[in-house]
């Protein structure tokens, strides 16, 4: 384990230099060392920024016009307005996030409603969902990856509302998978009895996207 930890620290220090971000790691002086260093999945480097990556234009959606709809495999639809969603019990989330483009950001703080809450009263035999966003982006997930406190409808970041460039007013947050699964500008789920690939999953990227197993690309 020591060897593994040291290896990760080496990787982190190296990638920090490549990123021009000196001072992330101080080694050999008995000085400050990031306590979270060993928390990086394989092939990832630490960033303190929050890069903005999108496959399309930023979507500006006023909360007065916003809605979130779950459509079941039988076509039943349940829709929440912004006021409906704000009335649901929400919670703070502190978590690490990992992008398939190799940056990781540790200890990010979010606020939102557990996905369990909106699926609670939906009758379904589905095992999968397709998340949909304003602007047309899609990403697919097994239900088991969004239930039991593993995913949220997030509308707060740090101590404020979620900024639009990061998916506000609301995005999906599935922090245990690569961040392309955490769809920005979320507006619905379609529940599916058989899995279907989303925007990136059908085009070179891994269907599941577990950063700890380095499930980056199709075939990994």
């Amino acid at each position, binding site marked *: 384990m020591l060897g593994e930890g040291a290896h990760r620290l080496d990787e982190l220090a190296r990638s920090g230099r490549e990123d021009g971000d000196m001072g992330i790691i101080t080694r050999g002086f008995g000085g400050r060392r990031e306590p979270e260093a060993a928390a990086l999945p394989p092939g990832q480097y630490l960033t303190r920024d929050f*890069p*903005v990556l*999108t*496959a399309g234009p930023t979507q*500006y959606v006023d909360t007065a*016009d916003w809605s979130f709809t779950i459509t079941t495999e039988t076509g039943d639809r349940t829709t929440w307005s912004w006021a409906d969603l704000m009335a649901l019990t929400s919670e703070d989330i502190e978590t690490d996030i990992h992008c398939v483009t190799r940056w990781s950001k540790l200890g990010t703080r979010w606020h939102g409603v557990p996905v369990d809450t909106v699926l609670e009263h939906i009758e379904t035999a589905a095992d999968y969902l397709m998340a949909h966003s304003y602007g047309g982006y899609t990403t697919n997930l097994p239900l088991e990856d969004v239930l039991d406190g593993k995913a949220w409808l997030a509308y707060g970041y740090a101590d404020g509302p979620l900024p639009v460039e990061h998916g506000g007013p609301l995005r999906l947050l599935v922090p245990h998978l690569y961040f392309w699964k955490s769809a920005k500008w979320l507006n619905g789920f379609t529940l599916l009895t058989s899995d279907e690939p989303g925007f*990136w999953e059908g*085009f*070179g990227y891994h269907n599941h996207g577990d950063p700890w197993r380095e499930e980056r690309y*199709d075939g990994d």
Partner: protein
Amino acid sequence: MTEQSASNSLDGNAAAGPFTDVFGFDVSTVLVTCGGCRASAVFAEQRAFLGGPGTVLRCPGCDHLLARVVQTTDELWLDMSGSSCWRFPLEASTA
């Protein structure tokens, strides 16, 4: 319902690299016709979205997805299904 902004996009030149990797020559002067609104513009004047996680080309007029490229460990993936036509100047493809 939504207002869309060009603030997070670049012009097509920014996406030329990954597409040039696929075709083997500079694609910036290729005329691309949108499969959505049928507008045509040279590649360099289309809209590019980089690194999210692949490279995406969209129509500047209607935001329709024109094409995308992904580089995996050992392959380049090319999707041109959103564009109806690519017209390659012969001087570009033979340069």
